[in-house]
């Protein structure tokens, strides 16, 4: 089964980010926006048409295109064990 990514999150659903499979430059930018491995991410609304998606991450809301979200791989296990705010 292929790993679940941020783009698979339904609205209101939450996941823990495992790793960023994107180019280094892109990963840097995304991490600055809060997408760090181990952090909880929840999907908010999407723009009309479902793209871009809006994610709640580290206290803010960030819009990403679906294509970008596909590079952000979620952990298999649920969010259990990860504390809020802990990275």
């Amino acid at each position, binding site marked *: 089964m292929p790993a679940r990514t941020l783009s698979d999150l339904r609205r209101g659903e939450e996941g823990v980010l495992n790793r960023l499979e994107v180019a280094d430059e892109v990963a840097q930018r995304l991490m600055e*926006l*809060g997408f*760090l491995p181990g952090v909880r991410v929840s999907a908010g609304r999407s723009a*009309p048409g479902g793209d*871009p998606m809006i994610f709640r991450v580290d*206290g*803010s809301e960030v*819009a990403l295109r679906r294509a970008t979200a596909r590079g952000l791989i979620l952990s298999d296990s649920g969010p259990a064990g990860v504390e809020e705010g*802990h*990275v």
Partner: protein
Amino acid sequence: MSDFQGASAAQAPTAASRTSGLYSLVAVVGAPNCGKSTLFNRLTGLRQKVANYPGVTVEKRLGRVRVEGGREITLVDLPGIYSLTARSEDERVAKGVLLGEMAGLARPDAILLVVDSTNLNRNLSLAAPILALGIPTLLVLNMSDDLRGRGGLVDGERLSEQLGVPVVQASAAKGEGLEAIRGFLSGGPAARQRLELPVLQDIGSRRRWAARATGQSGYQAPAAAAWTRRLDSVLLHPLAGPLIFLLVMVAVFQSIFTLAQPLMDGTETLIAASGLWIGALLPDSWFRDLLLQGVWAGVGSVLVFLPQILFLFVLIGLMEDSGYLARAAVIADRTMARVGLEGKAFIPLLSAYACAIPAIMSTRTIESRRERLATILIAPFMTCSARLPVYALVIAAFLPEKPLLGPLLGTRAAAMIGLYLLGFLAAVATARLLKSTLLKRKSPLPFTLELPPYRWPTLQSIGLRLADRSLIFLKRAGTVILLVTVVLWFLASVPRTDGEPPEISQSLAGRIGHAVEPVIEPLGFNWKIGIGLITSLAAREVIVGTLGTIYGIEGAEEGGDEGSPGLRQALTQDLTPGGAVALLIFFAFALQCMSTVAVVRRETGGWRLAVLQFGYMLTLAYTGAWLGKTLAEIWI
């Protein structure tokens, strides 16, 4: 180099002032959306100077603050950054300024580090590399009213102990904490014993460091902004969202006609009355002619449009400051993606509706160079406010006002929307063309956009925008437009025969107009419009002043009366409806704005793209105008 820059360089701190804690240049640093610019505006008010850093597209904002003892210090507002890794141009500039490596700017001797206290954990990540610079820093916990209001908490004193720098809880929007900030700028309070900061290279460890510091300071993140959620559930609703987006756009355009109209009428009356008053005061002379037919008719006919232009700036400002513009960018992203642009290009493109120059400057928020170039190249197709006077004049002259959708939409507003659409479609087509030719390679950085919570726009910020834009417009009316109209008046008044001014068609200006007539004749333009097209190369709206001057002189010739015939009425005698369509299309497409050409040259780092853009738009304008006229003549 501006004088201001020189002045700040002249005030470069000496070793003595550094040790005594008297600052002269203080940098304002912070992440995007942290309220940094609001604070900067609060502190400096109108005493600002905006320019570009040499060789890059990043705006350099300097402002002056009077501190204790009547001294003045300079504040430099750095671009919003997430880190000092110097990957983007913004970060390179910020780093360059902070290290004192920017030409013409001394190294700042203190820093105001502004963080959004409603998201302290992430915002404080930036503190690690900033504090490591070893420059005296005041940490400004901005939006602390918002933090408290949403049940959050932070102990500033303990945070200050953690970080080894003074901390102030502030709200730039409400004006809280400004006294403490001014106190710091005046030289106190003395920095605490500097703590040893670990060198944190990667983002993860910086973020952990920040979380530890806030954790030790009893930071409690605020509850989610309930209002933002509620508003977003409507404004980003799959159906209501795009509908509201369209409604907002229509409302903006409709209101700049209906609501701005009384103000414009008032301005027009004022200009006409003052012209008559001055005419009655002065004896009959060439000077009186120049003043009335040249300056009043020329500059006055452009000044009338100031209310409309300001209206547009206020509306765009309201959308930006409230946070709606970011939502609009998200809604627009999918559509923008179809033409190969991204949602962030929407913001510069929307500002280009006010003026292409700030729009082209604001493309720096787009991280990918290719997307940025594409946005710069298409921005001048957006209907800037300088086109408004031309459109408004021609439409009012040729199109009677009739309601189309009840009181909501009239024929004139509809025609205007049509012209806006035309510019937009040309932009889209050009973007596609660029993406398949010049800018073929895909960009590495994807679209990312942080959505700030909705906030009430502050009167001060809107007022500042208004003052700023009025000054720019008046400066242009007072310089470029004045110069062009005066030169034109002279050209139209020589050669004199027997001490009498020539008939305008026999004048030098008339001869120039006649010389270009064969080229523009296929578009339905005569020599008078030709003169307007030439003078409007300086700036689009100049054509209105030019026609005002020409008809002003002509009116004097015909009636011997000061009151020139209405510009609109005069225009209907010189243009057929087909020619009017051609004129509108010509102005929709042509890049008649030397300031834009200059900015594009600077932003793209050379003449190549600027010249290419000018030629491309001129070709399109000529062809489009000819097609428009031909079709209109078949149709009408």
